[in-house]
C-alpha cells in the first residue's frame, strides 16, 4: 500500500473512532486526555509540514503556538473581538510571524542545524518579551474570563469542545493529504531531498519554503488558540516554553515523519505513553519524559518513518506474500 493510501485509511479510521468516544463515555478524564491529544496533534501537524515534508527542522515551534494562543486571547480580551473571530485572528498572526521568521532565516540561507538553532532563539526571544511586557499580562499571564456560552467559544460540555478540536485535526489531515498530491507537495519533497538540485530544476526554493513555514506556523498557531480557549489561562512558559516545541516534534517523528497520519498517531501514542508511565512509575516527575526521549532515540535508530512507516512495511510484506 502506498503511504498516502495508508495515511488516508489510518486517519479516517482513527478520526471516526475518536468521534464516537463522547457517545460512549462522558468521563472527563478521557475527554480531557483526548482534547489535549488533539491540541498536540494539531501542533504536530504544523511542525510535520515544515520538517517532515520540506525537511526544515524547527526547534522553535513554540513561537507559533504562543502567538496563536496569545494573539487570540489578546484580540478577545483587549480588543473585545468575538472569541471565534479572535481565534482565526490568532491563527493569521501566527502565520505572519512564521512568514517573517521564515523570510529572515531562509534569506540568510540558514539550513540544517543553523535553522534549528535560529528558530529556537526566536521562540526564546518571544518568551522573554512576553514575560516582560505588561500588555500581554507579563509574568502574571493571561486569564480569559470564565463565561460559558457557545458564542464565547466556551462550552458547558467537554464533548463539544472535543468535537471542534477533532474537526480541526480532521481538516488539517485532509489538507496534508491534498498537499501530498499537489505540485506544492512535490516541490517540498524535492527541497527536502536535495535543495540545490530542486533549485537547479527551477523550483523557487525560497518562495516554497516561506509558504510551507507560513502554513506550518498557522496550523501550530491554531493549536495554541485551542489551548487558550480550553484552559483559559496562559503564561509565557505555557505559550512559548520549550515543552511545546519538543512535543510538536516528538509526536510526528514517533507517528511517522512526513506522513499525513503521523502527527495524530504520534500525539495519541505520546499521550497514552505519558499516562501509562504515570501509572507504572507513579507520580515521579519526569519519568514520562525520560520515556519520550528514549522513544525518540529508538525510533530514529530503528524505524525512521515511525509507526506509519512500520505499518506500511508490514502491509507491503503481506501484499508481497
Amino acid at each position: 500500500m502506498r503511504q498516502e493510501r495508508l495515511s488516508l485509511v489510518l486517519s479516517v479510521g482513527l478520526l471516526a473512532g475518536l468521534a464516537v468516544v463522547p457517545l460512549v463515555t462522558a468521563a472527563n478524564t478521557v475527554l480531557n486526555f483526548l482534547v489535549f491529544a488533539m491540541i498536540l496533534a494539531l501542533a504536530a501537524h504544523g511542525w510535520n509540514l515544515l520538517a517532515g515534508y520540506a525537511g526544515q527542522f524547527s526547534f522553535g515551534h513554540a513561537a507559533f503556538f504562543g502567538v496563536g494562543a496569545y494573539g487570540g486571547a489578546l484580540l478577545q480580551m483587549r480588543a473585545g473581538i468575538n472569541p471565534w473571530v479572535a481565534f482565526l485572528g490568532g491563527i493569521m498572526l501566527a502565520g505572519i510571524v512564521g512568514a517573517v521568521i521564515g523570510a529572515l532565516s531562509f534569506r540568510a540561507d540558514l539550513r540544517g542545524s543553523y535553522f534549528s538553532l535560529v528558530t529556537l532563539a526566536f521562540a526564546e526571544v518571544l518568551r522573554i518579551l512576553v514575560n516582560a511586557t505588561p500588555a500581554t499580562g507579563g509574568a502574571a499571564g493571561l486569564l480569559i474570563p470564565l463565561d460559558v456560552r457557545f458564542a464565547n467559544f466556551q462550552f458547558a460540555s467537554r464533548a463539544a469542545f472535543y468535537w471542534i478540536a477533532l474537526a480541526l485535526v480532521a481538516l488539517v489531515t485532509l489538507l496534508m493529504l491534498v498537499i501530498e498530491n499537489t505540485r506544492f507537495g512535490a516541490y517540498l519533497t524535492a527541497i527536502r531531498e536535495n535543495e540545490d538540485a530542486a533549485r537547479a530544476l527551477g523550483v523557487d526554493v525560497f518562495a516554497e519554503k516561506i509558504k510551507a513555514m507560513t502554513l506550518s506556523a498557522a496550523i501550530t498557531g491554531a493549536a495554541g488558540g485551542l489551548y487558550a480557549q480550553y484552559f483559559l489561562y496562559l503564561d509565557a512558559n505555557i505559550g512559548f516554553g520549550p515543552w511545546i516545541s519538543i512535543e510538536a516534534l516528538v509526536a510526528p517523528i514517533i507517528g511517522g515523519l512526513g506522513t499525513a497520519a503521523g502527527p495524530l498517531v504520534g500525539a495519541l501514542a505520546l499521550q497514552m505513553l505519558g499516562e501509562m508511565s504515570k501509572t507504572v512509575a507513579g507520580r515521579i516527575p519526569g519519568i514520562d519524559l525520560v520515556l519520550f526521549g528514549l522513544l525518540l532515540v529508538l525510533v530514529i535508530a530503528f524505524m525512521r518513518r515511525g509507526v506509519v512507516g512500520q505499518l506500511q512495511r508490514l502491509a507491503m510484506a503481506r501484499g508481497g506474500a
Partner: protein
Amino acid sequence: MQSEGVVAIVGGYASAICLATTQAAARYDLPYVVDVGVTDAIVNRGLKNTFRFGPGFGTVTQQAMDNLTKINEAAGKPAKTVMLVHEDGLFGAGLAKLLQAELPKRGFEVLDTLPHPTPARDMTNIALQIKAKNPDILIPSSYYGEFVLLARTMQQQKIKPKAIYAVLNGAASNFRFVKEFPEAAQFVMDCNHWHDPRKPAAEALRKSLEAQGKFWTYNIPMNYSAVLLLADALERAASTDRAKVTEALASSTFADHLMPYGPTKFVNGQNTGAAPVNTQVQGSDIKVIFPAEFSNAKVVFPVPA
C-alpha cells in the same frame, strides 16, 4: 477528578497553578481550599467554590510594610533607603511593583529595582549595584537558588546592608538555607507564612518532622491546617454534597489550626484572619520576631556590622 466522585480539593503552592485549577474546579462547583497561593486573583474572580486559608499578596505586602516601618521606628529610624531585587516572574515582578508604590508612602526612598531571570547564571552584577548604591535595606523576592546565590555573593563582596528584609522569599525562611549557609543566612528577615510558635501542636509537628531528618517549611503547617479546616467543614456539613460542604466552609469559624491567625472567617473566599509574620534567622534557628504577640525572639536590627 470530577468523575471520580471527589468532594473537595485542598491544594495550591504555585499561584499560576491555582489560578487554572480553581477555575477548572469552579465549573463543577467543587469546593477548593487553597493553602499557599498568594496571587490576589485567586479570590478576586468571584469563584464561589474557592476558599483561601492563607493570606493573599495584598495582605502580606501591607503587613510587611507595616512591620518594617514599626521595626525601623523601634530602632530609632536608622534606615531610610531601600533597594529591591526580584525575579522577573509572576511573583517577583508583582511584588516589586507593589513595594515600589508603597515604600515611598512610608518614608523610604527606593534607590533602584533590579529584576533578574530564573535561573540566573550570575548575581555578581546585582551585588555590585547594591554595593554602588549602598542601600540601608535590601528587599529580595527571588526563588531559592537565586536568593542563595545573591546572599552568598553579597557575603563574598562584603556587602552588609542594615537589614535584608525579604517578603515571601523562597529561601529566607527555609531551614536548608540556614543549615547549609549559616553565615550568609544570619539575621536575614522574612515576612512570610509561618506557624504560631506558641502553639504546642505546631511545635510537636515540627519536632516529629525534624526527627525524621526532614526540613521544616511553612507549607507543612499551612497544608496541615487547611486539611483540618476542610475536615471540620465536612463534619459540620455532615454530607458529601458539594453545595453543603461549600456552605460549611463559607461559615467556618475553625480555630484549631497551627497558624497565628485566630478563628477562620471567610469573606468572598478569603480568610480575613490570615496574616503573615516576620521571621529572622538567628543562630541556627528561624525565630518569629514580629508581631510581638506571636514572637519567640527579639529582632536584631540594624544587623551588627
